[in-house]
């Protein structure tokens, strides 16, 4: 029963989470859950399911990345909203630890972007701490422009690549 309730609640959560999030091409693979008991509260359009506390759950419920403007490392309202959902999720899973990685578009020199990526990761980290996440649960890194999720040389890709991406690195359901 627990599983069924979760699936319904989570589906509701993503519908809103996804609407405002640019498409990404590296969504982690979703693990098929154990068979879900037939719902008795009406039909549910089941997309792929996932386990509570998993990366897929985190991505869908909170959103795993926040986006930045050109050459910026300040957080937009939308980025703050995503980070608040991340903080809320992390409050529900107090054992989980995260890595926040700053990423940049390719239209800058290499070391400059490594520094800018670190700024972006730290901006996200600082906000997560302000939302009650214990600093010891957050590590940061910068990939600069070296790990773009979108590899074409287009404005659309560059916008997607200007982000701070949060991944669960421990204490979560695999």
């Amino acid at each position, binding site marked *: 029963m627990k599983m069924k309730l979760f699936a319904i609640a989570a589906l509701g959560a993503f519908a809103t989470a996804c609407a405002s999030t640019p498409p990404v091409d590296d969504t982690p693979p979703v693990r098929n859950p154990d068979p879900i008991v037939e719902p008795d509260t009406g039909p549910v359009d089941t997309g792929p399911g996932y386990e509570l506390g998993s990366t897929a759950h985190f991505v869908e419920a909170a959103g795993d990345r926040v986006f930045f403007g050109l*050459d910026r490392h300040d957080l937009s309202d939308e980025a703050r909203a995503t980070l608040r959902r991340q903080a809320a999720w992390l409050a529900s899973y107090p054992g989980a630890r995260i890595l926040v990685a700053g990423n940049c578009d*390719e*239209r*800058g*020199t*290499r*070391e*400059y972007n*490594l*520094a*800018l990526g*670190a*700024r972006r990761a*730290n901006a996200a980290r600082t906000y997560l701490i302000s939302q009650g996440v214990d600093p010891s649960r957050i*590590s*940061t*890194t*910068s990939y*600069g422009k*070296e*790990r773009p999720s979108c*590899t*074409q*040389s287009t404005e659309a890709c560059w916008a997607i690549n200007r982000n701070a991406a949060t991944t669960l690195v421990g204490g979560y359901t695999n």
Partner: protein
Amino acid sequence: MTRPFVLIAALLALIGWTSAATAQEPLRVDVTQGNLDPMPIAVPDFVGVSDEAMRRGADITRVVANDLASSGLFAPVDQDAFIEDIANIDLRPRFSDWRVINADALLVGSVTIQEDGRLVVGFRLWDTRLEEQLLGLQYRTAPENWRRVAHRLADAVYERLTGETGYFNTRIVYVSEGRGIEGEPIRQLALMDQDGANPSFLTDRSYMALLPNYSPSAQEITYVSFLDGQATTYLYNLETGRQEALFASGGAGAASQVDPDGQSLSARFSPDGSELAVSIETRSGHDIHLFDLRTRSLQRLTQHPADDVEPSFSPDGERIVFSSARGGGSQLYVMNRDGTEVQRVTFGSGRYTTPVWSPRGDLIAFTKQVGGQFMLGVVRADGSGIERILYEGYFVDTPAWSPNGRVLLFTRGEQRTNGTRYEIWSVDLAGFNLRRLATGGMASDPAWSPLIE
């Protein structure tokens, strides 16, 4: 390390030939001007008495001619045009035969293979108009060092004809770029001779390696490694292959002064090789630090809320240039080696990054980004703000000076439908002679070695 070869003597007998006393100027190539009229030089295949010596002679000739041509200052004359057949380099050439094919200079050489297998390579450089020998040298070396000898020989010719130290007997460390089967980025350090020969990898595909820099001894490099999950400054010994993280989180000594979550970026050696200037991240941003390689002590030089990155020493070791967004956009600043007297040296619009101080001291190379364009330029180090753009294109990064300060290597990116293509190109200080470096695939982040002993 033993010296790979011995300069026997500068005495391929200065036989005292003198010219017919024409009032011509001696041969001289001006490296300071854009050279649209390279000096024609004839380089017949070096002679040898055995087939093996002749083959090696032809190999050496090819390397020397390629070196000289790559500078843009010399134009090797087509061998098919040669009239005189050089059989003995100790005989006086028929200068008229070389003048008539417009060869201002003539380089003749010979290769002898000793009984112990060692090579003896001798050459004479002639001024065909004054009919004077400009240089005569002989090298002896182990056979496997024949390329080294060829590069040294080309350096000697370059130096005699330009008055500048050469740069052909050098190596280049760079980043070989690619993508793995799952699309993951591959960034491996690679090493090759300046002309692309003898390529090899220094690191494997399991982690990203970026931004190498040479030590003044050419025996070590620094680079930025992702072996530990985030950008960390590493010291890599090219002789032994050993490497160490200098500012790894949780480490002892200097590392304990560094924020465990902070990254450390590209480190450049002081001219005497005893110290590194490096940007290290703290919670308040990136600041320039000085690291003493012997005492392992770390000194913070800048403490500004803005990011200070990309430090590079002046050739006298007294000053450091770096880039910083402290004035708003990223600009270049110079300070004393103790962090005092910070002075801004660029004032143009756009984002200035990647400053590298010229070995001559007067200029600082940079990348400038204005709108959607990137430029490679040089600016005077004196604060006058006078700058010159050498190249402009879709993308520019990581300039690296030749040891004589006359040529720059840089990363050049071209927009392609499947992403940007990165290659290493060279350009001379006047903005001429743009050439692609002979790397295998995609390449970036060139580091140019000092002249190899």
